[in-house]
């Protein structure tokens, strides 16, 4: 009869770069109970809205999280634009799409690396992050920042990408895609990786839907929700289909992300070739009055910015619900029954981003 082991897992833990803590109750190494707890990163930036004008708040929104910083800025800006009925110029919409997808690329590659690290596959981690650097280089060249871009603003974008740079990016996409596909092959076909991922942390389609799972966590279980389908930014013009896997295990969630990497490359390619000319932004006058639930598909799933203006320069409320928060209930269901060695893998399989979760 196995005895119960109680292990304090985190907040500081080598495998999870962000502080999340779990009280693990194990029998031998099988998890019987895992209660997560957060709060180590809570800053309280929603209330910063009281101290920042709504235009300045974009900088704060970007720093809700440094990984999909662009997406947060985008989600926030789109919300304000919706309230203020601002029509964003076409070129800006396309540029936003390109940067969004670059963010998704670097985020997914980052995640793939961390995931490999979680499985103890150091070389794969190195390779993923090496590829990610090429995306970061593009981001730096086009926005001036590697991880915090600072190019999205209300009413459009702050920088353009010149034709020359666009052409260069387009040329670079093919070799990059090939490298990504080689990397993806390892994740999808390597036996040791499969052994670590398959049948682990299974969430059925119905369960995923009922628990409100978001993003690849939902899509890995066969729930086809992807907010890009609503056609914000330029997605409506580019045509978009969500990537869906049905197994609901860690392998499926990984596969979704691998395939989304390919899909992102494709979207960028199309966005570049269909890039319209035109202005980058429109002038923002007045202050927002009204409310809107702005939703954007982040690498980790849908994020909701609930924005409510009261006609002044300061919003009355900004409430940010991120995908990781929505994915915590599925995570709680996934852990019991896993092995201790699988705990980081399962936790990482929802791609937790504590920073934006806790705000």
């Amino acid at each position: 009869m196995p005895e119960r082991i109680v292990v304090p897992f985190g907040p500081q833990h080598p495998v999870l770069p962000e502080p999340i803590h779990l009280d693990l109750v194990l029998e031998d190494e099988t998890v019987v109970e895992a209660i997560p707890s957060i709060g180590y990163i809570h800053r309280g930036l929603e209330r910063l809205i009281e101290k920042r004008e709504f235009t300045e708040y974009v900088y704060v929104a970007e720093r809700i999280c440094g990984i999909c910083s662009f997406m947060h800025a985008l989600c926030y800006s789109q919300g304000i634009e919706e309230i203020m009925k601002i029509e964003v110029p076409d070129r800006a919409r396309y540029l936003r799409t390109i940067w969004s997808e670059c963010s998704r690329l670097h985020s997914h590659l980052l995640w793939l690396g961390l995931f490999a690290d979680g499985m103890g596959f150091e070389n794969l981690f190195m390779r993923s992050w090496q590829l990610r650097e090429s995306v970061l280089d593009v981001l730096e060249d086009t926005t001036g920042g590697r991880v915090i871009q600072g190019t999205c603003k209300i009413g459009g974008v702050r920088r353009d990408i010149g034709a020359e740079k666009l052409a260069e990016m387009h040329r670079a996409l093919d070799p990059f895609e090939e490298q990504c596909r080689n990397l993806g092959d390892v994740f999808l076909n390597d036996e040791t990786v499969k052994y670590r991922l398959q049948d682990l942390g299974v969430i059925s389609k119905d369960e995923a839907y009922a628990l409100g799972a978001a993003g690849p966590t939902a899509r890995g279980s066969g729930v086809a929700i992807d907010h890009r389908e609503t056609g914000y930014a330029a997605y409506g013009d580019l045509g978009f289909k969500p990537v869906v896997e049905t197994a609901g295990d860690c392998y499926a969630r990984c596969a979704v992300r691998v395939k989304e990497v390919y899909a992102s490359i494709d979207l960028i390619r199309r966005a570049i070739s269909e890039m319209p000319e035109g202005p980058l932004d429109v002038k923002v006058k007045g202050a927002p009055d009204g409310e809107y639930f702005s939703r954007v598909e982040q690498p980790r799933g849908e994020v909701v910015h609930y924005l409510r203006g009261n006609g002044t320069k300061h919003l009355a409320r900004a409430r940010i619900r991120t995908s990781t928060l929505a994915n915590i209930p599925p995570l709680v269901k996934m852990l019991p029954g896993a092995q201790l060695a699988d705990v980081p893998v399962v936790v990482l399989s929802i791609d937790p981003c504590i920073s934006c979760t806790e705000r």
Partner: protein
Amino acid sequence: MSTMAFLKRSPWILHYDASSCNGCDIEVLACLTPLYDVERFGIINTGNPKHADILMITGGINELNRAVVRNLYEQMPEPKVVVAIGICAATGGIFRECYNIAGGVDKVIPVDVYVPGCAARPEMIIDGVVAALSILEEKRAKMTGAAQIKDDARHAAGEST
């Protein structure tokens, strides 16, 4: 009492994400990867305070992590240095005025090097570690010196009795 100073050639780091936005965080991790490869300098990210020489903290101090940061710092054997990565870790950065942010890391533990930037970039982080190394070496010298003094005192006491 060695004067070899291996410490400078083998700084092992412990990275903790206090309340950063992940931006600086992932740049710290990026340092380990092929393009920056800090292992060139003998740096290893240990993830275990008992093995670490340099504590790298990203993000500011909030209500909950205050005790964690102090705990990690105390778990590290001397000599040790603290490198605050990013302006959040220096002053709280853009979140300085948030109700849950008490300020930079130096509110809780002594910080030896500040790496500014938002996000701090891998190259700056490398520079930060290099700056930390000489401080680390200073601390080691002081430590062995102190031990020497203590030793001498003990000898003196031993002889007098």
